[in-house]
């Protein structure tokens, strides 16, 4: 990644949306480019939050380890999205580990530099607000799901969330366009591998989904939505 690659990353991000070409160049000059291989980490949970990262390509998992040793997949981050922004601005530690799920690249800034850029260009700080608000909403939704909803419904909702992010129409249904293991699904819904496997096998028998090596195909979109939203069955 060179400076013009960095510029392309910035132009497509929400954080730097609305900046002039000149301002973007200034931000790009202050950035440090990176590339990352699958499995490698951008930062680890509990490390001092020194830099914010912006992904230009690839996919990164944000994974949190609980005190009792369970891993929880918090979020998937894709191109144009930033990682570590809250912790870095706050000057605390990273709340989760960022691990690459695919080969990726992007650029990063240290906390002081980002702070300085935000002061010079308030647009950046304003752009960060909707991002933070949507994060809060996401957490509220997940909290409600975890506190009140049946596991089956949680898995269905997760699949729909993934469809809205990375869904792809294929001849026999809607494919989730990323590598996804049953373990990933278990971590993202806060349940066990056993439970997820049981639910998916059941759905597979009913013809709702088809799972292959790290792949999930939704064969009966309506029925999955019906489970997620607790809709009455389609009238017949």
């Amino acid at each position, binding site marked *: 990644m060179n400076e013009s690659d960095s510029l392309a990353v910035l132009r497509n991000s929400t954080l730097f949306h609305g900046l002039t070409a000149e301002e973007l160049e200034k931000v790009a000059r202050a950035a440090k480019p990176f590339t990352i291989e699958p499995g490698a980490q951008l930062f680890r949970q509990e490390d001092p939050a020194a830099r914010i990262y912006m992904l230009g390509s690839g996919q990164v998992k944000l994974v949190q380890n609980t005190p009792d040793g369970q891993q929880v997949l918090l979020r998937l981050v894709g191109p144009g999205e930033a990682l570590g922004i809250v912790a870095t601005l706050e000057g605390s530690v990273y709340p989760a580990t960022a691990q690459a799920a695919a080969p990726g690249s992007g650029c990063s800034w240290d906390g002081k530099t980002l702070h300085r850029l935000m002061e010079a260009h308030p647009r950046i700080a304003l752009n960060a607000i909707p991002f933070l608000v949507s994060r809060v909403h996401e957490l509220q939704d997940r909290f409600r799901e975890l506190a009140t909803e049946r596991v089956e419904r949680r898995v269905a909702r997760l699949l729909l969330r993934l469809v809205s992010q990375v869904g792809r129409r294929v001849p026999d249904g809607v494919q989730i366009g990323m590598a996804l293991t049953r373990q990933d699904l278990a971590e993202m819904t806060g349940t066990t591998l056993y439970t997820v496997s049981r639910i998916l096998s059941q759905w597979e028998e009913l013809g709702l989904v088809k799972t292959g090596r790290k792949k999930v195909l939704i064969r009966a979109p309506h029925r999955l939505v019906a489970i997620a939203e607790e809709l009455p069955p*389609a*009238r017949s």
Partner: protein
Amino acid sequence: MNIETLPSLDDTVSTVLQRWPFTADVFRRIGLGDCIGCVMGSYESLAEVSATYNVDAQFVLQELRSAVMQENAR
């Protein structure tokens, strides 16, 4: 009337609702109200949702087209 300016059975639900937002009323009236705002609407065609909901596809098409033609005539 140019046929391309009317909904077709191959159009996805989202395409139709984005292009002719007023058809939301039609979807509701003919029993496809759940399709409005559904994330799968970007992937499922009118033909597919008609089959799922056991509504005659030609009826769905006709209702949507007449709503669009009425709106265009206003």
